């Protein structure tokens, strides 16, 4: 049996959570601590009654509890979407507190028991939120040392502390544990800081050299319960008298509800109610399969919109290029690109296209809401649990402190998923029905109606001088991102749109620019946002998708750098290094130096042979004896915030089928101080393969009125057969002073997504001489390109 994590029983003390689990017939498990956040940090048993005030981030007791058995529980306002951040938080906080890692637990993301650090997002868990965590743990250590000093009768500087035991240096027989000093009692220490990210005590954090667990790879504590079936996920949340709901979405985008024939479902056993408001419809039944049946069977008359809501996915890019932008942020300009292009010895231009791509979460969106005690408790995997709480409170016009979100594990929190929508729907229905309601979207609903990463159409122009130097570069992007929805907004969440409770003015959306440290004398980067005809109640609503905009933008930017290298007959790595080395100055994060280090590390790890692309082939024609499988390699590089990534893909392109297999991957990754190298490697692997799925498979396909890719056959994803044979991840510390004691820790959840599509495209070009400028590179499209080029 996996040993229980110490102190979890104390953390479980008589809470609503426990009562909830008991009454629903599920046993609390004693491990996987943060998997089910469930405790009042101070051991109180009051949540059942509410209200649920925000834990005060300026109180040390809100963050850390030291128990009598000399164990500690950390309460943090983040959620772990599967990258192991909870384990990393424990490593950082254990080090600062000077307690053994395996004597700690971490509880995350439930609005009534953990401080509001915003949940997850932006890959900022380690980069931003790790700092207040380190500082409060350091402060707890300082306070405990003061208490130990008084108890042992020795000055603080004559004390040593190790694994939660304070000893007098000159007489190690004199000692006392943290648990003896404070076990079960409050610190009552006030912290300072204008906002939660700035939270601090008096103590300073340790130098990198003094950290012990940071840099090691303890196993993730959440994994055992995920492989033995004992974890209670958000999909498992149950409550007494709970009913099941299924949504009934409009059959075509922009349709208006005319009439519901409730008699079409009233005879279904277990039928409870049809709930509708505006164009929002849900059926509620006692049992799940009854709700599924009712949602399929219900007869509803809808009125189609007068005009088509959008062009087809085939016509999308022409539409976007012809549309009048809804906004155009100020371009980024260096030198004069027009003049330099006019004077260049050689100019090239190219258009790149990236479709809408969905989260298409592996588990369709779900949530359970319990309206007991005139309150609302939502059991959700939403990565921004605090935002869900605030949004639902506004949506239902309830006081914030009568609403809480219990965060539980769920599928892939990679941005603004439909988990937000399901949380609002469950709460709305629970209020309507007066019983706990579980909402679960179906597969077609998730694939069609979850939020999408915006489609991009990018034009690139570049000019080389007579020596093959890049003298001018122009980037002009159009992103279909108007009315980009934020997280848990009560006036943009899907149910609010369908109910007609939407905001007056849509969000302007955004369009991004490339992220690189190339020194190019004349450069103009401009981006425009465009809108599709239907702005509200559309399945093509955009929201953040893992590394928002990054893969789209970098596909264009880094493919074109490769095109320029080829035009200059230069090696793609050398061409990039020349652009990086062309400037003498760096920024305060040393991103230029670190970019150079990362590109070099990737090339070295791969064993890069210096030559221009495409790779010379013995024959251009299969009939003339060329092999059936062509191989090539491509590099791409970018950064996200302070994290620098270079990736090399080696591909096999099958001439008979058009199938592209990324056979080998190398990633060089610099995110500063690494907390848990093995967890980081796996995060990077997942991010790269996610981006390969976007490169090779993923596209939201639609006709003029609805999304047509609605399951895993019509909307394919990467599979086991596509998995690379070899992946090498090199963790780089490219800081000019790599041993500095304040080496920062940066984010890693998304950066490795960014350069990947371009690396695959560049490798396909190296293998075949064919430049693919439209994502995804599905077999049929590649085969058509091979045939068209006679390869």
């Amino acid at each position: 049996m996996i040993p229980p994590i110490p102190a979890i029983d104390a953390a479980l003390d008589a809470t609503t959570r426990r009562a909830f689990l008991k009454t629903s017939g599920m046993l609390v498990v004693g491990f996987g601590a943060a998997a089910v956040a469930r405790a009042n940090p101070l051991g109180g048993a009051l949540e059942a009654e509410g209200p649920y005030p925000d834990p005060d981030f300026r109180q040390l007791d809100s963050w850390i509890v030291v128990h009598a058995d000399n164990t500690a529980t950390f309460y943090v306002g983040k959620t772990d979407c599967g990258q192991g951040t909870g384990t990393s938080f424990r490593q950082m906080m254990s080090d600062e507190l000077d307690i053994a890692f395996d004597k700690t637990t971490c509880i995350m993301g439930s609005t009534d028991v953990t401080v509001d650090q915003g949940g997850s997002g932006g890959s900022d868990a380690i980069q931003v939120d790790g700092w207040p965590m380190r500082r409060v743990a350091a402060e707890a250590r300082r306070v405990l040392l003061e208490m130990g000093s008084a108890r042992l009768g020795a000055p603080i500087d004559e004390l040593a502390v190790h694994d939660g035991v304070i000893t007098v240096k000159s007489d190690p027989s004199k000692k006392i544990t943290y648990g003896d000093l404070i076990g079960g009692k409050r610190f009552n220490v006030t912290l300072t800081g204008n906002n939660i990210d700035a939270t601090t005590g008096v103590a300073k954090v340790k130098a990198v050299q003094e950290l012990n667990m940071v840099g090691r790879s303890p196993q993730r504590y959440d994994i055992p319960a995920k492989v033995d079936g004992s974890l209670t996920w958000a999909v498992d949340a149950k409550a007494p008298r709970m009913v099941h709901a299924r949504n009934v979405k409009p059959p075509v985008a922009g349709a208006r509800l005319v009439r519901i024939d409730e008699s079409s479902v009233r005879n279904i056993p277990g039928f409870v109610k049809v709930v509708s408001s505006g164009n929002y419809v849900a059926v509620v039944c006692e049992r799940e399969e009854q709700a599924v049946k009712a949602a399929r069977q219900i007869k509803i008359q809808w009125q189609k919109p007068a005009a088509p809501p959008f062009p087809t996915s085939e016509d999308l890019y022409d539409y976007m290029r012809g549309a009048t932008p809804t906004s155009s942020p100020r371009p980024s300009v260096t030198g004069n690109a027009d003049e330099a292009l006019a004077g260049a010895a050689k100019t090239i231009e190219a258009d790149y296209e990236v479709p809408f791509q969905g989260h298409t979460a592996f588990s369709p969106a779900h949530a359970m809401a319990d309206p007991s005690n005139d309150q609302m408790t939502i059991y959700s995997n939403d990565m921004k649990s605090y935002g869900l709480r605030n949004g639902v409170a506004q949506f239902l016009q309830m006081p914030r402190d009568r609403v809480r979100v219990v965060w539980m594990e769920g599928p892939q929190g990679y941005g603004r998923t439909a988990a937000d929508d399901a949380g609002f729907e469950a709460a709305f229905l629970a209020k309507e029905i007066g019983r706990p309601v579980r909402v679960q979207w179906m597969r077609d609903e998730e694939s069609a109606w979850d939020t999408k990463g915006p489609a991009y159409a990018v034009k690139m122009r570049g000019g080389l001088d007579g020596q093959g130097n890049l003298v001018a570069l122009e980037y002009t992007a159009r992103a279909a991102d108007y009315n980009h929805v934020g997280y848990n907004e009560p006036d943009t969440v899907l149910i609010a749109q369908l109910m007609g409770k939407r905001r007056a003015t849509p969000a302007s959306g955004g369009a991004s620019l490339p992220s690189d440290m190339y020194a190019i004398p004349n450069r103009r980067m401009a981006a425009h946002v465009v809108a599709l005809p239907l702005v509200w109640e559309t399945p093509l609503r955009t929201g953040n998708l893992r590394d928002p905009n990054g893969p789209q933008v970098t596909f264009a930017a880094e493919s074109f750098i490769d095109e320029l290298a080829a035009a200059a007959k230069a090696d793609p790595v050398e061409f990039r290094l020349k652009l990086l080395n062309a400037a003498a100055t760096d920024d305060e994060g040393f991103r230029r130096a670190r970019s150079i280090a990362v590109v070099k590390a990737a090339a070295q790890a791969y064993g890069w042979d210096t030559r221009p692309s495409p790779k010379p082939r013995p024959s251009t024609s299969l009939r003339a004896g060329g092999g059936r499988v062509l191989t090539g390699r491509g590099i791409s590089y970018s950064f996200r915030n302070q994290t620098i990534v270079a990736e090399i893909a080696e591909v096999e392109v099958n001439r008979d089928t058009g199938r592209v297999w990324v056979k080998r991957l190398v990633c060089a990754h610099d995110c500063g101080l690494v907390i848990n190298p093995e967890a980081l490697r796996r995060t990077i692997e997942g991010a790269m393969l996610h981006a390969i799925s976007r490169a090779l498979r993923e596209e939201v396909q639609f006709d003029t009125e609805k999304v047509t890719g609605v399951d895993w056959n019509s909307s394919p994803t990467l599979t086991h057969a596509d998995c690379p044979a070899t992946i090498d991840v090199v963790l780089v510390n490219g800081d000019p002073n790599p041993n500095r004691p304040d080496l920062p820790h940066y984010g890693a959840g998304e950066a490795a997504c960014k350069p990947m599509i371009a690396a695959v495209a560049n490798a396909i070009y190296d293998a075949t001489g064919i430049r693919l400028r439209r994502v995804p590179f599905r077999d049929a499209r590649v085969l058509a390109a091979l045939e068209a080029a006679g390869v």
Partner: protein
Amino acid sequence: MSKITLRVNGNSHTVEVEPSTPLLYVLRNDLGLHGPRFGCGLGQCGACAVIINGVATRSCITPTSSVRGEVTTLEGLAPHGTLHPIQQAWIDEQVPQCGFCQNGQIMTAKALLDRNPNPTDAQIRDGMNRTLCRCMTYYRIQTAIKRAAKMMADASPASACGYAGAPGAAAAPGWCAEPRTWESEARHQRQFALRVGPQRKCKKEVIA
């Protein structure tokens, strides 16, 4: 509604449901199991996989009334809390990201290894291909399957109870053909601890 009796993880359960009710909903909502989960309801992704008569079966498209024989869920792989070697390999390799699909990955791998204790890379890719992961942990899953195959092969000849789970024994609720006692479980644990060694070195890394 009909009364239907199922054998799940070694126990009998009688439920009263519409005969066409997908097995998945009965396992989750009537029996309170958390291993099999809803992913697509179409038999395309594998999130709901259980093992019935040695075959990894998609419970979301299996009518409850059609079930004949013992159903094993993820929970049933670890009788008395002793992890199946596949589960241990999953921990050793630190496979999951979010972990939502891993029920299907583990159950499909179990049926695969029961059928073919020493699969090639190509057989693993082929055998697992219809079991999807949106965190794209495929690389670690495939490594873990090879690790588990080795653990089971190493244990099998020397052990009184075949870890490898011969096809005929696959319908048993767990992985062990020997009567399970706390003593035998403890012996397995010791054997595996010896063979597999400490789980992870947990050394401080020098980063390039």
